């Protein structure tokens, strides 16, 4: 069994009586990547700072490599936790060269030069070790920050909004590079982001946080397909909701009859992703196209059902047959997500 690199139990932190972090328990096996995903102000950065030791929790326990670093009566200072951190603004020491920055966390007696070279090699910056931080591009600064955090071989690396300071055009490429560097280093990683695409594409596990609470911890696929609550579903991308009624394991809604997925009888909310609705242009259809937003490789069609409800459908390709006013038929998947009302 793989070792658990980091575990938190019932972690809570209050600022002036409001819970910034509320009863957060999570654990992450060695070598895995976890994304803390949530809107700004949801407590994800505070969670990171609690794990790093920059803030003391008001309640809870933290274990690094099964060693307690925080619990009642014990608060191991950040410098003794073996938790590396890459800050949003990188926080490179402006008065030190790249090499000195990377060497800063290495013990005095170690073979520092070798380790510095090794780590800089890993991030692909070996030839700029004598430069000062202000002489580097944003992407280079970030890789130095990574190298600095990785050099002492921490049990866990924390990244706070790692890509928010980069141009949108650069972000995708840097994301792949950074993931590769961290994988090559064998690092265990927790990173904070408000961008679901970033979370889904980088992480093995995604933890969704809102208002200080951890709402769901799951693989990216499960999270997207089966959000635990309606608010998580809304947060994770564009989505449709319809009201429906369950009766004897059959769902009845405006799109017809569907399997009830074992839900008890009663009113429900039906969640359907726009890309799961298939449209057919036909005068006998039950809905009308209201607006069409064309994006190139896909398009978003807004429909109005004759009952007045509105739905969105995302279709691939540049077909021009769904123009406002067009009547359409809608086919929905059998596998819809239901939330009791």
């Amino acid at each position, binding site marked *: 069994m793989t070792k658990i690199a980091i575990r938190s139990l019932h972690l809570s932190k209050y600022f002036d009586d409001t819970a910034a972090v509320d009863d957060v328990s999570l654990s992450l096996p060695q070598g895995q990547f976890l994304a803390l995903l949530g809107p700004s102000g949801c407590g994800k950065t505070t969670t990171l700072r609690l794990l790093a030791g*920059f803030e003391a929790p008001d309640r809870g326990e933290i274990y690094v490599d099964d060693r307690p670093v925080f619990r009642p009566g014990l608060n191991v200072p950040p410098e003794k936790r073996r938790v590396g*951190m890459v800050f949003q603004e990188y926080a490179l*020491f402006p008065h030190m060269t790249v090499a000195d920055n990377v060497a800063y966390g290495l013990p005095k007696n170690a073979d520092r030069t070798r380790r510095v070279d090794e780590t800089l090699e890993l991030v692909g910056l070996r030839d700029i070790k004598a430069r000062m931080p202000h002489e580097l591009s944003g992407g280079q600064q970030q890789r130095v920050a990574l190298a*600095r955090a990785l050099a002492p071989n921490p049990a866990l690396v924390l990244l706070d909004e790692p890509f928010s300071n980069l141009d949108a055009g650069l972000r995708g490429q840097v994301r792949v590079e950074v993931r590769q560097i961290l994988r090559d280093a064998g690092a265990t990683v927790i990173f904070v982001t408000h961008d679901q695409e970033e979370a889904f594409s980088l992480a093995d596990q995604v933890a969704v946080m809102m208002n200080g609470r951890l709402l769901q911890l799951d693989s990216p696929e499960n999270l997207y397909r089966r959000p635990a609550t309606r608010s998580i579903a809304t947060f994770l991308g564009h989505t449709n909701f319809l009201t429906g009624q369950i009766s004897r394991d059959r769902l009845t809604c405006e799109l017809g009859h569907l399997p009830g997925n074992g839900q008890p009888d009663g009113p429900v909310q039906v969640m359907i992703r726009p890309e799961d609705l298939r449209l057919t242009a036909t005068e006998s259809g039950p809905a009308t196209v209201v607006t069409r937003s064309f994006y190139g490789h896909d398009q978003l069609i807004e429909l109005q059902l004759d009952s007045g409800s509105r739905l969105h459908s995302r279709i691939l390709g540049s077909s021009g047959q769904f123009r406002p006013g067009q009547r359409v038929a809608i086919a929905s998947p059998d596998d819809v997500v239901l939330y009791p009302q």
Partner: protein
Amino acid sequence: MTVTASKLNTILTRIEPAWTRRHRHRQSNTPPLFLVIVAVLVAGAAVLPPAYLVVRAAGAGASKVADILLRPRTIEVFFGSAGLALAVGLAAVIIGVTLAWLTVRTDLPGRRFWAVATVLPLTLPSYVGAFTLIAALGPRGMVQDWLEPLGIDRLPSIYGFPGALLALTLFTYPYVLLSVRAGLRGLDPSLEEAARSLGRSPRRVFWEITLPHLRPSIYAGGLLVALYTLSDFGAVSLLRFNSFTRAIYLQYSASFDRSVAAVLALLLVVLTMLILTAESYMRGKARYYRSSAGAHRRARPVKLGRWTIPALIFTGSITLLGVGLPLLVIGFWLIRGLLAGETINLGWDILLNSVTASGLAAGVAVLAAIPVAVLLVRFPGFRSRWLERSVYLGYALPGIVIALALVFFGANYATFLYQTLAMLVFAYMVRFLPQAVGSTRASLLQISPRLEEAARSLGRTPRQVLTSITGPLLRPGLSTGLALVFLTGMKELPATLLLAPTEFYTLATRIWSATEEAFFARAAAPSLLLVLVSAIAVWIILTQEEKKV
């Protein structure tokens, strides 16, 4: 001059980068113990003088205190001081606003030159300024000398209220000028253009839009001047105006019953506090008026037209009186002294005394400032607000008050320190601590706490972080603080007069005694030197301001 220069310094360094505000709520950790201990000691040192003054005054007994407070002389001094502060404040506002507008918003010929020249009076320590005014305009001064052939053997007296008003206005209006100028530059010209496009004449736009937006800058500058006037000792004493500071000094040196001086000093503190409270109230409101940050476009200059000549005459004569005349007088007496065979030898020992005392004070003040600034910036909270208040108490206390308190304290409890260099350095330290803390703090605000956290997560203890990261990055702020305390220490007069060891003369006390005895030639050389020293200090403060804006 010190109170105001340092005050200006902090007002200007209050601007914080965005991240401090964003992350402030997260700074909830407790500070390291060694920082707290040192900071509490420093705060204690800063609070000692005023606290002891209260004890001392209370020791006189309630009926005695009431008796002193109700003396006609006390009441006269109180209203005289308050009146002078008000009059100087008003005069400085009128001159400062006019000059700011002329040099920023009009086509005044030689604007760039005037922009610098009109600030220069700030470089004259008020007692140097007063000395030059007396030497020039005194009843038997230089002007009378030139007018002698016309049969004028005496000019109207410059002493008393008119002289004090003239001197203090001339050498303090730059505070208003600088603050209003910053306000004018921050004002988005599109506001005025919007008003014009809505049908207002330029004149009405000035009264309805421009002036209301400048109100906070005017208040800030004016109150700074008033505060300065209350704390000034050198100019009013030389010009023999009975203000608080002079009355305190006379009471102190003339009588054996020193509780009168203590009560007067406390009353002065009360008056100063009143003004400070008014100022912070105004400043709180001022934020409301802050104009848009993106005002980079320059307003089109107003054409002065037929007002060009009067504007030039006004600007020219203020500059002439505030800088030209003093420099002329100093130069005149320097040369005249030379020709008359009077030794212009500064006295190397005097220079050395000044350098030693203020150099030591600078070192001590900056060392004391570091833990205080770290606590204030990195661990803001209720307790550090108290720390800030006690350390910044120096602002509220005129130099003579601090000096007097330390004289009492030294004579009673620390006789081994009384009239030693250590005592003088301590007084300077308390007095200039706000300046050192201000510079250190401004510099610390530029250092992201993330840097320190990064160092912690890389395995360093708080103390190691302080020496390897914060310390080195703080160096520019520390050198600024060092320079400021050193330079202002060189100019310090009242504390030196009261606390210096016997026969320990400095440049400041030399100018003072020479002017009192009308040995103008003897005052000239040290004056010139102090003007230079002071010019460097002003230059440092102004470049700090530039960097912030």
